[in-house]
């Protein structure tokens, strides 16, 4: 356990140092994370105005609240691990990682969390600023805020495991971008980033319930906004746990298979 803590601490230092060096990259990423929910915020607010004030139970203020919270939740749970692995496999820098006596996922998690330590404050500032501009309707309940903490942690875990497993596709093909694209498209729709899931037609809502995407972003967002009943919350957490379990199993299988392929082809 001491060893793991050491790894996390070391990765913390490395990530911090590289961030200070490459400050511009930081700002650019933040822009992307802010702009997308902002775009949909504006679009749906426009829709609600064009439709006479509200759409599907969402007023412009509701949309503002939804997308601002979504922005934060997305930022808390996001990873860039697919690009990371595609790069590592292509450059051949994965081999030294594999030689270490610790599973590479730990330094990946550490890197992810450290980066967020740096960027999350900035995002919160932006969220508050957007709050002043768009006047979101914020009404939530205390238990929802308390429940949010385990829910968002679970959401991060589910998303990380799934995206980490997806990243391993780099072992098999260099054409990971097509695969990533498919993943992102599905994610956009079924996680609630394009529209609150309540606004999707019924068949799509059912699909969204079954797929893991909602449980990574949409669900924590809906919870924090006080839009869910306790029962729905518990069901959601159940889905998160189920997907985490499934994801972990899948991850082990794919990791073992990937290692075989990687060492066969040449490290």
């Amino acid at each position, binding site marked *: 356990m001491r060893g793991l803590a050491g790894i996390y601490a070391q990765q913390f230092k490395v990530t911090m140092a590289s961030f200070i060096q490459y400050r511009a990259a930081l700002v650019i990423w933040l822009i992307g994370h802010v702009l997308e929910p902002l775009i949909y915020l504006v679009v749906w607010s*426009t829709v609600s105005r064009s439709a006479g004030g509200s759409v599907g139970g969402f007023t412009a203020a509701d949309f503002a609240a939804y997308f601002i919270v979504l922005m934060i939740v997305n930022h808390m749970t996001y990873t860039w691990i697919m690009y990371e692995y595609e790069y590592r496999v292509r450059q051949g820098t994965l081999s030294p990682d594999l030689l270490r006596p610790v599973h590479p996922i730990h330094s990946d998690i550490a890197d992810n969390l450290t980066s967020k330590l740096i960027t999350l404050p900035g995002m919160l500032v932006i969220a508050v600023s957007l709050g002043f501009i768009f006047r979101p309707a914020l009404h939530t309940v205390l238990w929802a805020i308390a429940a949010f903490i385990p829910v968002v942690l679970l959401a991060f875990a589910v998303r990380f495991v799934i995206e980490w497993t997806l990243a391993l596709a780099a072992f098999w093909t260099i054409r990971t971008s097509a695969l990533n694209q498919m993943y992102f*498209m599905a994610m956009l729709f079924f996680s609630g980033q394009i529209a609150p899931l309540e606004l999707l037609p019924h068949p799509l809502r059912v699909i969204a319930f079954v797929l893991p995407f909602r449980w990574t972003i949409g669900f924590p967002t809906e919870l924090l906004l006080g839009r869910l009943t306790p029962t729905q919350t518990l069901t959601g957490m159940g889905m998160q746990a189920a997907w985490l379990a499934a994801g972990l199993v899948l991850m082990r299988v794919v990791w073992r298979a990937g290692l075989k392929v990687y060492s066969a082809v040449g490290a």
Partner: protein
Amino acid sequence: MRFLRLLFVFWRIGILGELSYRSNFIFHLLESVLELGTALAGLAVVFSHTSTLGGWRPDEIVALVGIYFLVSGAIRMVIQPSMERLIEAVHEGTLDFTLTKPEDAQLLVSIQKVEVWSITDIVLGAGVLVVALVRLGANVGLWEAAAFAASLVAGAVIVYSFWLMLATLAFWFVRVENMLQIFSSMYEAGRWPVGFYPRWLRFMLTFLIPVAFATTVPAQALAGRLSWPTLAGAFALAAMLAVLSRVFWRVGVRRYSSASS
């Protein structure tokens, strides 16, 4: 003209080189279709809840999406690859070779690379645009078509100059590839009429990162909504940025010529 001859030579060789990689084409097509599909599906969800959006009809927004993809394809095909290569060349020092050639260096770095398969975006975008126009039963008369073409040209010059200025930053900073990302990130907003956004964002998308001139303005031209002042403004901005980017480029090269070892 000399410029056209060089353009032809560079592009011909770039395109011919890629043509043998059919699998690249398939994958590119797949990604383009996915992206376009998502955009249109998103539109469908939006328009399942309302019949007009901020004064725009559904098919007008579809036309905008078509233009968005068309322009995006053009950027990814002829502007982005060269600018990315330029940044590499500055850092690797291979720009030295370009600077010892008896041709204008800005010209050489701007035409050096072509991403052939992005033509799928151009084709798909054009297809969507045509379908939308047909469905609109649009009266696209001579004026509208001319204004459309003119605003596209102005938009192209604006976008190119902007990208060149971003890439020129490589003479001063290390991780400039990320800067190029700024445009791609902000460009996302071009899928919707820029008029929807609050004033401060609209300003940014018009004058800071020229998305509006690349997508909304041409769309307005086709829909007959383009006012003369806006079109004139586009040309003025295009001319100004063309000059500014050239000056900036020369400053950058001058710095490179004093500092590199």
